[in-house]
């Protein structure tokens, strides 16, 4: 176990380094942020001074080294647009995204997995076919379009829910979150449903596929022959066996949703990190782009690590590390 953690940690460091270089080169290739930001009437002298002030006149490798040196001192830099520390900026937006993603993933799991189990258990029934048809819709219809439909229906026509934004924050177990107030829930529910549809489709299909396969295996037949009720077979034996692909995908989806919930965030004007990163790209706010992308890499590394540990719990045959 210990060896496993160490090797994972080393891998993670290499990945983060490689990523930081790729991000740096990529961002550098787009162009000089001063040309995007500068006021049209600025003089050439002002432009030159600004470029020097932000170190943009230095060669790429030198800028990268300066960046590394600052990171080593725990300083990820300051946003060129907001002039506040990048970490502060990202973390001030993170709670909103976290709320949205957790609710979305919860909806996707709570509805998706039982629906998938049912569809796999009775694949020929009408309800199963309906579930599968809906899951295809969840996959293929673009998120922003469903988002607009939801807004037109529930906010504009019916007026039940607000069209966007985040609701009032309350305190729950010492954490300040909009999930602690009714107003907060009225704001979060629509974007969360919107965000969950794709993942729900994914969960349904994965669970169903595993289910169909597992129901034909010998151990299920034996269990049935033993006279175990189907309920017990499905929830105690089959579910555990089909969990591994579901957990893997769950982890990856959690990561990618956290990092890139941007479409839903802009349609619903949700003040999360997705919007921040898109705005930063549009203004070429380099420190924010670089920091954010590196944070995303770290996030994925952590999630994958957690998923590996969950594997071991689910399937005793999986051993962490090389110990026999």
């Amino acid at each position, binding site marked *: 176990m210990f060896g496993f953690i160490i090797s994972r940690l080393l891998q993670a460091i290499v990945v983060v380094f490689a990523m930081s270089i790729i991000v740096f080169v990529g961002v550098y290739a787009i162009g000089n942020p001063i040309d*995007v930001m500068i006021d049209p009437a600025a003089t*050439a002298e002002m432009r030159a001074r600004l470029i020097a002030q932000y170190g943009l006149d230095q060669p790429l490798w030198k800028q990268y080294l300066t960046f590394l040196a600052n990171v080593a001192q725990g300083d990820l830099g300051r946003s060129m647009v907001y002039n506040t520390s990048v970490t502060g900026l990202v973390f001030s937006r993170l709670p909103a995204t976290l709320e949205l993603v957790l609710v979305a993933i919860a909806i996707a799991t709570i509805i998706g997995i039982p629906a998938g189990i049912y569809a796999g258990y009775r694949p020929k029934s009408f309800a199963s076919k309906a579930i599968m048809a809906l899951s295809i819709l969840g996959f293929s219809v673009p998120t922003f379009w469903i988002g607009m439909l939801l807004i037109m229906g529930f906010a504009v026509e019916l007026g039940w829910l607000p069209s966007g934004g985040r609701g009032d924050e309350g305190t729950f177990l010492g954490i300040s979150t909009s999930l602690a107030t009714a107003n907060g829930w009225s704001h979060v529910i629509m974007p969360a449903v919107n965000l969950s549809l794709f993942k729900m489709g994914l969960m349904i299909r994965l669970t169903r596929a595993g289910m169909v396969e597992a129901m034909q295996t010998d151990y299920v037949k034996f269990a049935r022959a033993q006279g175990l009720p189907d309920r017990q077979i499905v929830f105690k034996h089959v579910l555990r066996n089909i969990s591994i692909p579901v957990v893997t995908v769950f982890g990856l989806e959690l990561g990618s949703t956290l990092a890139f919930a941007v479409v839903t965030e802009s349609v619903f004007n949700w003040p999360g990190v997705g919007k921040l990163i898109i705005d930063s790209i549009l203004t070429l706010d380099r420190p924010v782009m670089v920091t954010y992308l590196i944070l995303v890499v770290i996030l994925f590394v952590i999630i994958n690590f957690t998923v590996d540990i969950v594997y071991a719990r689910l399937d005793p045959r999986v051993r962490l590390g090389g110990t026999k």
Partner: protein
Amino acid sequence: MLKNALRTGIAAVALFAAAPAAFSQELTIGLRAGPDSIDPHWSTLGSQAEALRHVFDTLVDADDTLQLQPGLAVSWEPIEDTTWEFKLREGVTFHDGTPFTAEDVKFSIDRIPDVTGPMSMTLYTKYVDSVEVIDDYTVHVHTKGIAPALPNDFTRMFIVPSETGEGAGNEEFNSGEAAIGTGPYRFVSWEPKGDLVLERFDDSWREESAWERVIRKEIPDDAARVAALRSGQVDLINYVPATDYLSMENDPEIETFTSDSVYILNVQPTVKDVAPQPIKVNGEEIDVNPLQDLRVRTALDLAINRDVLVNVVLEGLGTPANQLMPEGFFGYTDEIGEKEYDIERAQELLTEAGYPDGFEIDFTCTNNRVPGDAVVCEALAQMWSRLGLTVNAQALNGTVFFPAAANEEYTMAMSAWGTLTGEAAYTYGAMVHSKDPEKGFGNFNRTGYANPEFDEVFVEGTQTLDAEERRALYEEASLIAMEDRALIPTVILQTVWAAGADTLTFTPRVDQETRAYEIESVNAE
């Protein structure tokens, strides 16, 4: 029926959601962009100035057509070639109760170089040499050289109290600690990309605003902003997209407000000896740059059907442009008539210039900077192809376009330009005067255009303190630049606001600022 029943049943929830609109003294505005900081000296960004105007005041204000109006200064005049005298308004207090005096002006101007960011505010103080406090209500600004446009520069130069101290930066302003001005509203709260909440300042020197509380929500997504208005979450939105404009105009529940903007889409033909992107005739690259020939530029101009651009391409949200500024701006000349569309004359000119079969040329534009830039780009390419040219039009994201444009990589480009100060020097000094880093002119002259006659007339204007003489010189400069087709203006873009019918009223501003204190409430009660 069912819908109505549901409506009543869930009325509580609906009320809950629409609560902000329920208080008549509260105004919630959905805006495309907001400030980047609460420090008024951080950035020259338009949406920054617009937001901070509610909290801070400037010495000089501008009315809805950008003509200068008294602000914290009641009058100003040049007393020597290099000295402007500003008489300050008496009896004004900051939000914390301290009186406003000349020291605050000096402090604010001196503070700028230390705290400003990449969109540098030193732009507005580049002519300022020093600030001299004469008495509590008189300030002398000594300038580097003659600076007739100084009052224009001061329309976005905000005044903070001298007690702010030198250490205060973005963090202190964003938290509200240092966000103290003389403006019509007090700062309550803000976070980047979030809501700016304001409360009326009752001791303001202006007429009392109709709104006790103003919430400026940033909703960059066009569709989301429209939905927020339609669902009653906000009372007013700016930058209504053209696609929604038509349906809103026909909707009795919604009222729209339309105004010309300062933004004009200009075609920028490169007139350098070598075109950055090669021009081809019959598939062969040619050594000469046809755009150097005035006849070719005139042909390009004549082939543009501006009525079609306005009425078809922009669905009515534009005005044909005949020069680089809208009518009424300082330096706008009446001597250029309406631009005509004459494809036959254009073809003749092209033949005279030696291109009877046209040529193949690249044309690059922005696609996300102003509403309509991409569609106008495509339409222009089609218009020129009727002339016999092969135009490879490409509309790019501004993030890609601007750095490449700054490197002068485009043979022919189009982007929007706004004469934000309401007077010609801003535009001509940056885009039309020949490139001259020493004098600080021509920084945005990417076409290589250099006309000594224009430069002379324009520079003479910038050295003339008498307003009427200066106006005449700028008008002459306008005529020279336009006859020479240094740039080819196409359309003035219009912008649209929308609000619930019979809730509020205001005069739309040509600089597109949405000022809560200039909005009046139409209250049925």
